[in-house]
């Protein structure tokens, strides 16, 4: 089983994802340079956070025309799991692999802090070890995390169970006060219709060790491993 972490110029959570997978979860993990032409040997691709191409123009906009993204599209079509975190989520949205778009945080500022998210769908390769409605304490760090999607699309996404995480209060209630950036309906993470691509703004790789921000993030990567080992996807 092999994970690949894509490195765009300006990615900076690549190393964090790599360390989390290799050091904390003991997985075979490699970096994938953005000019790579072949993703054949990987079982899961991670699009890490950071500021690919400086997040100039729009977060993820320039990365979508990077050569590796054609290969990522093929990888997605082959049905294998892809997770995009923060800027990685923006790349997925810009490329049209996931629906929606991102606006500036509604307070117009970059926000770095721990938030709570509620798991809305446990029938994905990324959440299959989560309990129903499980609440995770997890850091965010973004300036353009205000998720937007049109009404029609949203409706379809809801019908398809594509909303995976929502920002919530410590007790799990989804409230305006617990929405850090103005995201539509507190959406913090979504998957594609097929369920093999997850985009999420919070950073699970930042909370996988007690010395950092707790361990709540580990369940997401462990779910992927479980899935790749043939473990059942709930529901």
């Amino acid at each position, binding site marked *: 089983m092999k994970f690949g972490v894509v490195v765009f110029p300006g990615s900076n959570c690549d190393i964090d994802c790599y360390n989390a997978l290799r050091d904390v979860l003991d997985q075979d993990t490699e970096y994938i340079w953005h000019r790579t032409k072949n993703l054949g040997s990987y079982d899961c691709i991670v699009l890490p956070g950071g500021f690919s191409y400086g997040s100039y*123009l*729009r977060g993820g*906009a*320039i990365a979508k*025309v990077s050569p590796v993204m054609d290969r990522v599209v093929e990888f997605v079509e082959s049905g294998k799991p892809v997770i995009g975190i923060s800027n990685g989520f923006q790349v997925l949205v*810009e490329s049209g692999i996931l629906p*929606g*778009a991102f*606006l*500036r*945080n*509604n*307070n*117009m500022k970059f926000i770095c802090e721990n938030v709570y998210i509620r798991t809305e769908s446990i029938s994905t390769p990324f959440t299959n070890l989560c309990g129903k409605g499980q609440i995770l304490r997890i850091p965010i760090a973004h300036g353009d995390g*205000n998720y*937007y*999607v*049109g009404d029609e699309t949203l409706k379809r996404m809801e019908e398809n169970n594509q909303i995976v995480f929502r920002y919530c209060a410590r007790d799990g209630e989804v409230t305006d006060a617990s929405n850090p950036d*103005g995201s539509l309906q507190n959406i913090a993470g979504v998957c594609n219709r097929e369920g093999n691509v997850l985009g999420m703004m919070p950073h699970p790789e930042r909370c996988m060790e007690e010395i950092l921000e707790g361990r709540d993030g580990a369940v997401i990567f462990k779910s992927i491993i479980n899935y790749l080992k043939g473990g059942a996807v709930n529901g």
Partner: protein
Amino acid sequence: MFYAKVYITLKKSIADPQGNAIKEALLSMEYDGVKDVRMGKLIEIKLADKSSKEAEKRVKDMCDTLLANTVIEDYTYDILEVQP
């Protein structure tokens, strides 16, 4: 040689927090007449194309594939011929 000015704005239906913040700031500075502010991008591109038709086609293409995100943004552009 052509010179394209691309104007990218948020779609009308989408709230514009930056524009609002500027509006609030202007009102607090006692520019009472301000009714609405929208914030967009201006991208200026110098192009070596031969004809304005060609330049226009190219610019439209650039907008659709990179410069604008049409889920949330609209764009328009002007194209001027300039001396190299």
